[in-house]
Every structure is written in structure tokens, then in C-alpha cells.
């Protein structure tokens, strides 16, 4: 999903303290990320194809629930994918619907902070790039809504849950984009954090979600790079441009760290999601990965990360860093961020303004259908 900054689940999914995790997973992620995020996406795609070739036996047509559960467990254990018409535990279905929907909502709301700068982009090339990027976000929202729909929920229900506020979107989008440099900072930091979260989901056990994530991650890489390039040009530009870029990084750094959710020690997170291979790494593991990536990248930008305590820890072989303000995260999640009301009002307005168009299109389709029926065979 975009981040883990959604607040508590809105459905009764079991939340238990994390059991011992397989540290091999974290090491594998570190190695894979080191080879580049696109490489990791490609590896996930290859693994998906490879696992598809393994046979797991078959569930008998008249199997009872225990046998179906056993077959489901065997498919997960073999790293094969659960597909829409397979039997699955009801909680697995509901957990996935919530996670995929919140991710989709994040993409849709995420169009707003960057769309804010389309009309003022400072060159025609930047305008084209930003238009294409905001368009991609709509596309990602649609891929994900489509994946959620394979689980037996409708688009109308999903949209209703967003505009009614019953389901959340990533809290990062409740911050404003105040200058052009924010477009760069959002691309580099927010999309960068999103990719760190999303790349492991290319290996998610649910087939339609994993396939959607592979597609999304390939496209997100363009987003992260364009953001980095925007900041790089500003960081090496005029004093005014560099100041603008530093200000944006100063404002977006800690909210980006908060995208990974509360620290593991303070939070419950779903061991069940780990077991089901829906979630694959803890919040802190992913956050550390992100910090380690960003430090070197910031240097090349000629910009500094706003953390005086950021330093290499040779023992941990990772950077020590200051945690984001999780109280602030909780306030934003609960609705009191700078832009929560604005983002929701915009989405509701667009949805309401479109009602007469959707009615017209349905009426037109119905007329054409009845025209066809009226034609003698």
C-alpha cells in the first residue's frame, strides 16, 4: 500500500503482537533493494511465473472447509498465488479489500497535491511530465480498484467508502504543496517511501494485487526519478531555487518517515497479514531501508536532510535517525492535518458534479440497448 499511515483498521481483523520474524526476509530485502528497486520488481515478476509452475495438488470438488483451508495454506506456503475464484478465509478477503482499497484511495487523493502545480509548472517539459504523473496516479487507483473488485466489492461501494470517510487514504496527502519544489520532494520522498512499501507487495499472495503492484511499481519508478531530477536541478540552480528545494525537503522529510506507520515497539500489527504474505516487512524495517537510501541521494542533490542526529552506525550497518512525530501522525490520521478537509471536499465535489454525466451515459446506453432489441432478428 502507499504507506502504513492509515490509522486503525475499520474492520475487526485480528491484531496481535508480532511474533519472531524471519530475519532472512529483511536481509533478502536489503540485498534486493541494493540491486535497485526495478530489479526487485522484475525478480518478483519472475518468481510469480516460476511459482505458477509448481504444483500444489488439487482441492477436491466436494472438499469440506478444513480441506479447502488446507489447500489454501498449501498454496500460500508454496508462494503460489490465490486467485479470485479460489476459496479463501473470509478474514483474508476482508483484510485484502481494506488494504487494496486504502491504497487505491491514496492514489486518487494523491492526484490533488501535485495536480496543484500543473497549471504553474515552470517549463513546458515539466508541465508534460507532471500531467503524465498525475494521470498515472489515476491509473494506479483504477488498477487497484479493479484488483479489489475481484474480491467481491463494487466500485460504487469503494468510492462511497472514500467520499464518506469510512475508509482512509495515506495521511501524507493531507500536507500542502506550497512551492514548485514540493513537486520534487513529493516525487523523491513520498513516492520513494511508497516504493519501499510497495515493492514487497509485488510478492503478495493474492494474484490480482501482486500483478497490479508489479505494474504500479514499474510506473512509480518514473515518478521517483522525475521528483529527484526536479530537486537536483533546483539544488544546483540559483540561490533562490536551492532555498526553495531545501525548504521543501525540510517540510517533507518527517511526514515521509511517518508514512511507514507507528514504530514496531508501540504498535500492534497483524501477524496474520505476515502469515498470509499480504504484508512482508515491519514498519521499522521499511523505514530504516528508506532512511539508508535517502542519505546518499540527498548528498548528490546538494541538499541536507533536516536531522542533526543522522549518522552512520557501524555496528548496525545502518543510519541512526530521529523518529518522526507520531503524535502529529495520529492527529493527521484522525482528521486534523492541514488539508484533510480540503482534500475530501475536492473529491466529494468532483464526484457530485459528475452525477448528471453518469446518469446521462447510463440513459444513453439503455436507449441503445433497447434500440437493438427493437430491431427484428
Amino acid at each position, binding site marked *: 500500500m502507499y504507506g502504513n499511515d492509515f490509522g486503525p483498521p475499520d474492520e475487526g481483523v485480528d491484531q496481535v503482537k508480532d511474533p519472531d520474524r524471519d530475519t532472512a526476509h529483511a536481509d533478502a530485502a536489503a540485498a534486493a533493494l541494493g540491486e535497485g528497486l526495478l530489479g526487485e520488481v522484475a525478480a518478483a515478476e519472475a518468481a510469480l511465473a516460476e511459482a505458477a509452475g509448481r504444483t500444489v495438488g488439487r482441492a477436491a470438488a466436494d472438499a469440506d472447509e478444513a480441506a479447502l483451508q488446507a489447500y489454501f495454506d498449501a498454496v500460500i506456503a508454496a508462494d503460489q498465488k490465490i486467485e479470485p475464484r479460489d476459496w479463501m478465509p473470509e478474514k483474508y478477503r476482508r483484510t485484502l479489500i481494506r488494504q487494496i482499497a486504502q491504497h487505491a484511495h491514496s492514489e486518487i487523493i494523491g492526484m490533488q497535491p501535485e495536480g496543484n502545480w*500543473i497549471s*504553474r509548472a*515552470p517549463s513546458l517539459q515539466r508541465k508534460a511530465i507532471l500531467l503524465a504523473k498525475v494521470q498515472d496516479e489515476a491509473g494506479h*487507483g483504477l488498477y487497484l480498484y479493479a484488483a479489489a473488485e475481484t474480491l467481491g466489492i463494487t466500485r460504487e461501494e469503494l468510492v462511497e467508502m472514500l467520499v464518506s470517510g469510512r475508509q482512509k487514504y495515506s495521511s501524507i496527502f493531507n500536507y500542502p504543496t506550497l512551492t514548485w519544489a514540493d513537486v520534487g520532494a513529493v516525487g523523491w520522498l513520498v513516492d520513494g517511501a511508497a516504493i519501499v512499501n510497495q515493492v514487497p507487495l509485488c510478492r503478495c499472495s493474492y494474484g490480482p494485487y501482486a500483478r497490479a503492484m508489479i505494474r504500479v511499481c514499474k510506473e512509480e519508478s518514473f515518478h521517483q526519478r522525475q521528483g529527484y531530477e526536479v530537486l537536483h536541478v533546483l539544488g544546483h540552480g540559483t540561490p533562490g531555487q536551492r532555498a526553495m528545494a531545501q525548504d521543501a525537503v525540510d517540510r517533507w522529510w518527517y511526514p515521509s518517515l511517518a508514512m511507514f506507520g507507528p514504530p514496531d515497539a508501540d504498535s500492534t500489527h497483524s501477524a496474520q497479514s505476515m502469515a498470509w504474505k499480504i504484508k512482508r516487512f515491519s514498519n521499522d524495517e521499511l523505514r530504516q531501508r528508506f532512511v539508508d537510501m535517502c542519505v546518499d541521494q540527498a548528498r548528490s542533490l546538494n541538499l541536507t536532510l533536516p536531522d542533526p542526529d543522522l549518522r552512520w552506525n557501524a555496528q548496525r550497518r545502518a543510519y541512526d535517525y530521529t523518529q518522526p512525530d507520531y503524535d502529529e501522525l495520529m492527529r493527521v490520521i484522525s482528521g486534523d492535518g492541514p488539508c484533510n478537509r480540503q482534500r475530501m471536499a475536492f*473529491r466529494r465535489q468532483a464526484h457530485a458534479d459528475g452525477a448528471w454525466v453518469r*446518469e446521462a*451515459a447510463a440513459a444513453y446506453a439503455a436507449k441503445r440497448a433497447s434500440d437493438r432489441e427493437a430491431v427484428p432478428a
Partner: protein
Amino acid sequence: MSRPGLFDYLLALGDDALVTAQRLGEWYASSPAMEEDIALANIALDQLGAARLLLSYAAEVPDTALPARTGGPLPVAARPLDEDALAYRRDDRQFRNALLTELPHGDFAHVVTRLLLLAAYQVPLYDRLAAADDPRLAAIAAKTRKEVAYHLDHAATWVRRLGDGTAESHGRAQAAVDALWPYTHELFAPLAGGPIDPATLRADWERTVTAVLAEATLARPADGWAPGGGRDGLHTEHLSYLLAEMQSLHRAHPGARW
């Protein structure tokens, strides 16, 4: 190529596309369905791409061929010329787009109706320009005509649905057609410097548009008031606001790279 008036001609076509893209860009995330947001973004990107090719070509027209006729000479700040100098450092009096493209958008009916009226003109225009004896302009046109054919198709698809949908959508579509119709005459006014006379595109345009309106059960408005002036840099009050927004950041940092 430095035909007299070529610079102005390229600006007219390029500004139509640029201002269209700017208006469509304002519409992001506001469509009746998310699928449509993606479609309109594609169309905005196509128009922006055409604008960049045309303005880049205009920027290379030799200085001696630059006319001083349109809305006064180019400001000194606009030199040296490139696509961004032409897009960001000209004032509204130097823009040569047709007024149709700069009108603020209203509802979704207004968005797709304007696109229909414009694309129905751009399709025969670029079809003809693709055979022009100016190879660079012909190459731009050959690329652009495929894009605008899709814009026309998309706009017509929606106008048919809105016109022949519900009573409300019919009313909104007819209101959009009535409001925009007077501004279409300017598209066919004489335009110096180009290889074709815009008046010769009118029959094609009329045939396309009236066929779509008929399918959409919409009335073709009577011809009458025919506002113009955009090709000479005399615009509506709306354009300077559009440019103020579009150019604000670029102009705030003179000489900066982006």
C-alpha cells in the same frame, strides 16, 4: 523556411494547442469518472506536445522574418527564443490563439463540446498541413493529425451521450453548444503565413459537427455574432488571468533553469 508571416502562423497553431492544454490541465481530477480523468489527461498531453513542436519551430524562424504586427513586438525578455520563452515570456497581446480555446471551462458538457468544436477544425487542418511543402510543418502535422483524430472521436462520443442522455444532460449540452458556437467563426478567418486558407476547412468542419449534433439530438445554433481578434492579439479578459497563473513561477526566477 522563412515565409513572411510563418512565425505568426506557427504561433497561432501552437497557442491554440498550448491554451487548450492549459485549460484541460486545470480540469485534473474533476471528471465524472476516474477513467475520464485519464482520457482528458492524454488529450491535454497530446495538445501540449503539439504546442511544443510548433513553438520550437517558431523559435527558430530567423529574426529578420519576425513581424512586429501582432500585438506589438516581442518583449526583449523573450529572447533568445525557445519554446519556453515563447510560452512563458510573452504577454497576452502577443498570444495568437483563437478565443474559443481561452474561455474558462464550465461543466463537463462545456469541456467536451469545446473539444469537439476545436478538434473538428484541427483534423482537416492537420490533414492538409501534412501535405504542405514545408517539410518540418508537414512532419508535425503528420504526427498531430493522428492525435486530434482521437480527440475528435472522444469528444463526439461524449457529446452524443450528453445530448441524447437525460433531459438535464441535453439541456447542459445545448447550453454549451449555444455558448461556444459564436467563437467557432474565428477559426476560419484569414490567417497569413500558412500554406492553407482556413476558410477552406469550413465545409469539412461543418459536416463533422452537424452530423454529431444531429446524432446527439442537439440543435445547430444560428450563425450571428462572431467574436474574433485572438489571431491579432486582442483577447477576452480571461487570457491574461490564464497566463498570469501559467507564467507566475517561471517569471519569478529570471534566467533560471528548470
